[in-house]
């Protein structure tokens, strides 16, 4: 049973489209995150939710909208996709400060 699973694993889409990435964790953790890894492998946090409440919102364009229907799920919707949005998006979860568990990533390619 995968601890943090996200779908899809690969996503190729055209500029201007809207797409969603889904994430689910079965670890019972209270906090979930979205991280972005760019082409140089640099990782940066985008959002964090704790018990369905948004607690961290880094300087991310408002085309990116996270949604957490319950504490086990955190989805990411992206409107009007741009070439610069191409990256690997990782979902993660944690309980307190013990370190985050990451999903396998979604490789988004905007053409």
């Amino acid at each position, binding site marked *: 049973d995968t601890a943090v699973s996200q779908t899809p694993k690969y996503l190729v889409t055209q500029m201007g489209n809207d797409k969603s990435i889904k994430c689910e964790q079965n670890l019972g953790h209270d906090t979930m*995150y979205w991280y972005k890894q760019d082409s140089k492998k640099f990782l940066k946090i985008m959002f964090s939710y704790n018990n369905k409440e948004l607690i961290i919102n880094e300087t991310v364009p408002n085309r990116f909208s996270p949604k957490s229907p319950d504490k086990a799920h955190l989805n990411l919707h992206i409107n009007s996709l741009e070439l610069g949005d191409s990256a690997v998006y990782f979902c993660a979860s944690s309980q307190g400060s013990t370190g985050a568990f990451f999903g396998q990533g979604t490789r988004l390619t905007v053409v």
Partner: protein
Amino acid sequence: AQSVTQLDSQVPVFEEAPVELRCNYSSSVSVYLFWYVQYPNQGLQLLLKYLSGSTLVKGINGFEAEFNKSQTSFHLRKPSVHISDTAEYFCAVSVTGGGNKLTFGTGTQLKVEL
């Protein structure tokens, strides 16, 4: 704000040799420190963490790291590497009251050669 520096972008090493991957951090408050490993086309796996207590922490796959507060460092070591250790290694820090968000270094590519 906190930051992490991994000075070595690539570290080549022969199999069965020891290795040290360097990590330095900057923070004005207490920190928690982590090392993650990323194999090609995979997610990040937690290798080890320092939260408090003993400054020498042991992790999975034979890795260990030492927290040095005076040097603001958290270097990762392994006494004898294997080909399967070839991967990208990331050092990360979180701070108390920071919502547990991780701030990552730029990563070190460990390449183990025969």
